[in-house]
């Protein structure tokens, strides 16, 4: 629909695809390629469908750009304009780089949502397999009312997703590799950059201060990796280093964290000791002297590493746990500590009480104090399982009847005289006994086998799936009424009927399979 007014952002000529020359168009919502001299596109991908783009390394003879789709397919474009191939490719790449993330988020969200639903709900997944994979209905149709339902029903569930944390080792993932000629190569991905920014806000600040104006992105990161800031044994961060300020800020952050103190009084080492010995008393502990003058460089670098690790872990933790709340939380905390300690004193006891109670609790010594349940004592478990049986008019036998019949039988037995001329042959007799003993032909009614025992589980499962699939189709069917649009009418008369046919056929196949298996 928008194809009429599509805005063409970039046109690159002399681009080959599948050994055909053509032109590449980058439009507002899609990328397309048409062979030379033709008026239509043979290749057209929505940006939302594209997972990523790859480019050929700089030194290669062929200058290519590959698009990988979410489906796993890929399309490769070869830029063949001798003079400006590289420039063309880079222009396309840059533009794509800007465009893709915009669509990516949307697409990803939807895709993720669908994925999540399928993973969480095995029934739905099966349904999806039965209907979509076997091409009874199309995926769009399948999702059309599903997603809508879900989104309308509880929009919070999808929004309320947990924030993805940061890997503790994201700095380890940028292990430098030697590129063979006295250089180091660091692999940076968008995720890692994001992690760095979230963990070290100071770096982000520097980035936003410097990057477009003073430095290019590449230069910025090169400097970052060169700086002592990145190397953890940062002792002598030179003043000309743009990151020296970050180091100071980190230091400050660490200090403020320390000053804030801890909320849990049980881990507060400062208030652990009740009465410290006065100065001058005590068994002299050989403390490493804290004055910086007589510490060697190595020692102070070691303790710097330790500090950095603590800081790093704390930042990762903070970034992961409550991203949005941190600033407000910090502010409130500092204000309460900056204010008089009186009110922090008032807040403290409850936390302390709770923690203390937690610690002295011996859960296993206590009787479990959940509400007592009464054990169910069933005399007839099948009655319980099947629920009450509707009262049927039954023919009751009174005790008198029983006595009468017993008397009658006794009477018969007394008068029983074997008719020896009309006995059964021994084979017939034994077969009759067999038929009457449990499991025999005549005794089958007595040992009623439930259907679920007769049919193997996989067949049952299949039937269940067929049932669910048919149900889904019927839902589609009924949702078409009242038929007030031509689309619905077409759906009803055309493919829905066909679908139901398919479903029925499937059922039929299942039926025959079942019969086959049975015999």
């Amino acid at each position: 629909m928008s194809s009429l007014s599509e805005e063409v952002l970039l046109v690159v000529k002399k681009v080959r695809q599948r050994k055909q020359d053509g032109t590449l168009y980058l439009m507002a919502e899609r990328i397309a390629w048409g062979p030379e001299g033709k008026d239509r596109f043979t290749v057209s991908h929505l940006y939302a469908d594209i997972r990523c783009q790859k480019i050929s390394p700089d030194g290669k003879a062929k200058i290519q750009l590959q698009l990988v789709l979410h489906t796993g397919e890929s399309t490769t474009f070869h830029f063949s304009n001798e003079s400006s191939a590289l420039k063309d490719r880079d222009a396309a790449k840059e533009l794509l780089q800007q465009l893709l993330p915009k669509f990516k988020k949307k697409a990803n969200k939807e895709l993720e949502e669908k994925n999540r639903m399928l993973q969480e709900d095995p029934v739905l997944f099966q349904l999806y397999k039965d209907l979509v994979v076997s091409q009874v209905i199309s995926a769009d149709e399948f999702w059309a009312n599903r997603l809508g339902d879900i989104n309308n029903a509880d929009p919070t569930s999808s929004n309320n997703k947990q924030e993805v944390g940061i890997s503790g080792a994201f700095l380890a993932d940028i292990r430098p590799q030697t590129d063979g000629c006295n250089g180091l190569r660091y692999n940076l991905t968008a995720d890692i950059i994001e992690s760095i920014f979230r963990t070290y806000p100071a770096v982000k600040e520097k980035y936003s201060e410097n990057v477009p104006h003073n430095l290019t992105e590449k230069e910025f990161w090169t400097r970052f990796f060169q700086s002592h800031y990145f190397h953890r044994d940062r002792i002598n961060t030179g003043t000309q280093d743009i990151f020296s300020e970050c180091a100071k800020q980190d230091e400050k952050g660490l200090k403020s964290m320390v000053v804030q103190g801890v909320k849990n009084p049980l881990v507060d080492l400062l208030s652990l000791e009740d009465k410290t010995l006065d100065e001058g008393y005590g068994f002299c502990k050989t403390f490493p002297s804290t004055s910086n003058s007589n510490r060697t460089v190595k020692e102070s670098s070691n303790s710097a590493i330790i500090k950095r690790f603590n800081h790093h872990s704390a930042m990762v933790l903070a970034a992961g746990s409550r991203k949005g709340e941190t600033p407000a939380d910090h502010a409130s905390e500092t204000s309460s500590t900056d204010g008089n300690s009186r009110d922090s004193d008032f807040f403290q006891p409850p936390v302390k009480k709770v923690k203390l109670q937690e610690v002295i609790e011996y859960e296993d010594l206590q009787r479990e104090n959940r509400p007592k349940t009464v054990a169910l004592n069933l005399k007839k478990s099948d009655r319980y399982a099947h629920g009450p049986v509707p009262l049927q008019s039954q023919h009751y036998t009174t005790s008198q009847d029983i006595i009468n019949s017993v008397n009658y039988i006794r009477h018969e037995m007394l008068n029983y005289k074997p008719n020896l001329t009309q006995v059964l042959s021994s084979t017939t007799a034994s077969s009759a006994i067999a038929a009457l003993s449990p499991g025999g032909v005549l005794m089958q009614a007595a040992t009623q086998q439930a259907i679920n025992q007769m049919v193997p589980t996989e067949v049952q499962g299949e039937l269940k799936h067929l049932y669910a699939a048919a149900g889904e189709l019927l839902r589609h069917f009924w949702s078409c009424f009242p038929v007030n649009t031509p689309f619905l009418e077409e759906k009803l008369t055309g493919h829905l009927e066909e679908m139901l046919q398919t479903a029925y056929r499937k059922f039929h196949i299942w039926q025959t399979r079942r019969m086959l298996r049975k015999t």
Partner: protein
Amino acid sequence: MKLNIEGLLVYFPYDYIYPEQYSYMLELKRTLDAKGHGVLEMPSGTGKTISLLSLIVAYQKAFPLEVTKLIYCSRTVPEIEKVVEELRKLMEFYSKQTGESNNFLALALSSRKNLCIHPEVSALRFGKEVDGKCHSLTASYIRAQRHSTPDVPVCRFYEEFDAVGRQVPLPAGIYNLDDLKDFGRRKGWCPYYLARYSILHANIVVYSYHYLLDPKIADLVSKELAKNSVVVFDEAHNIDNVCIDSMSVNITRRTLDRCHTNVDTLQNTIQKIKETDAAKLKMEYRRLVEGLKEANVARETDVYLANPVLPDEILKEAVPGNIRTAEHFVGFLKRFLEYLKSRLRVQHVVQESAPQFLKDIFDKVCIDRKPLRFCAERLQSLLRTLEIADIADFSAVTLISNFATLVSTYSQGFTIIIEPFEDRTPTIANPVLHFSCMDPSIAIKPVFQRFQSVIITSGTLSPLDIYPRILDFRPVTMASFTMTLARTCLCPLIVGRGNDQVALSSKFETREDFAVIRNYGNLLLEMSAIVPDGIVAFFTSYVYMENIVASWYEQGILENIQRNKLIFIETPDAAETSMALEKYQEACENGRGAILLSVARGKVSEGIDFVHHFGRAVIMFGVPYVYTQSRILKARLEYLRDQFQIRENDFLTFDAMRHAAQCVGRAIRGKTDYGLMIFADKRYARADKRGKLPRWIQEHINDGSLNLTVDEAVQLSKHFLRQMAQPFRQEDQLGLSLLTLEQLESEEMLQKIAKIAHQT
């Protein structure tokens, strides 16, 4: 449930009981019956505190005349508060069961810092500042001055307490620190002084060791506690060090300089007073002539706890004439000070005994032994007379005078070491005079002598027989209890080799060995991959940890560990470490998992528990031997050898193993808890080391796990963790490690229980 412990009705506030708790109470009851002292080792997390409290409270109720008071000493403030909370639970159970309201008074006592409610004073951060400020507001002469000049600031809480607080005793009940503060706020009384006053008639007092063991504090606080009290030292595995600490003195140049200014101030004040109020000094003189009779009478009639700084002999005598007047005493102090200064001007290490020191001081500056002995007492008297506002300022001169008294009182048990510089920095002159106590029994002796029963208990007191020897007392019971377990929830493993067969050890020769460090790193890395939630690793010393962390960082091991868990590291700074600890717990809590690298003998290893998921594995890198090159330690070892016939190696190993046991024991805090205990040093496999671990750990080390490689340990751990992760219900324990009353009373069970206590 109500228990019958050899004829004593004990209320136990739970529906079930661990067999070892019953056994523990039996032993405790026997100790109290015999009116003797006891040493009891029971694993942490088996409800030691509640057993102790239940039995002793029951005993107090049954025999109110024989045991009037329970003095419960613990180590840290949270620990003290925990005890009071458990006591509260017990008392609630009592009143629920008997239906009568509780007539017991129990309270916690802590330093001013934790009890002050004065808005300005309590805002101060450090305990010493709080004490000093408090003193400047509450000292008797300050308050006397207020009568003449009403604008002198005083503490209204103290005034209020002083006016009415003593008339009515604190109503019966359980008072934790916060309860005392609340009560104080309501009444407008000072909680600290209220508590100090109330401990005299309280049934149960919970406070820290120092209030009994440190003579300076004990003299103020615990002097008048009743003789027929039961004293409990909980977490007492380090009690000898506490004793030694409270009696040792270190004197540096800085101390002497500050002392100098103190003495000058004293002199000026004396001069001033002499001009204005000579009568006051005369009065003091008269008092000193009469001697310390008052104190002597009190001690003879058994009202006071003896003060080891104030030996018996001097109480009978008057203060010698040459220090009786204030000026003479200040002159005396100056002479003494000059002598100490000259002693600090040494070029090489000097070590001498107290008699040698006394002889030298007599030869050089003609100071006799006798006036030295009265130094501490004389200074106290002078400070009182001169109405010095801030005692804290005079800490230096107090220190020196205490030193003088101690050095002249004890000819044995102390040593004097003068070091001109630190060992690590021989070029920087920093002379220190260590006057170090080597005999812990000196400080604790008055406690054993005065109180009828002293119970020493902890989770790790092995080997039991060493404590009576070094503390010099004769216990009537010594018992170690094992932990009855329905499932073996602890898994001690001794990792002796790396995967490349390199022997793992933190011994001095291989300390810098990269192969060992790498293998240690490997162990931690592999464990971080398989252990859920929290791992705590302990190193033998801070320097060692720093080096290892640095080389792990260089080798990229830490980065790999970070893939599995976050890393937090203890630092010498307590505030920083607290922050790291809290973050560590947060990381364990939210499922990310974390590793805490820490130091044995550090604050973390002594005071923080890692319950449940906060510590699923403890790794002990190396054997935490104390730094053996220290001269003080060498002197102490020599003393132990000569006096107590304890061989140096035995003591060192004992000391190392009790710290190792403390560290690994941090992870197991109860029967529903579980954890790996990894001893990463091949020396742990030796019988002399292994044999010194507590019995409840030792019995789970099987011969197969004595010299494992890293890989083998990982395999065993995986298996163990998988088993432990299965649901564990109360029913699984019942009858084995958890008993109902009926089960407890069965004959068979009683026989089993008799085996739990391991008498030595």
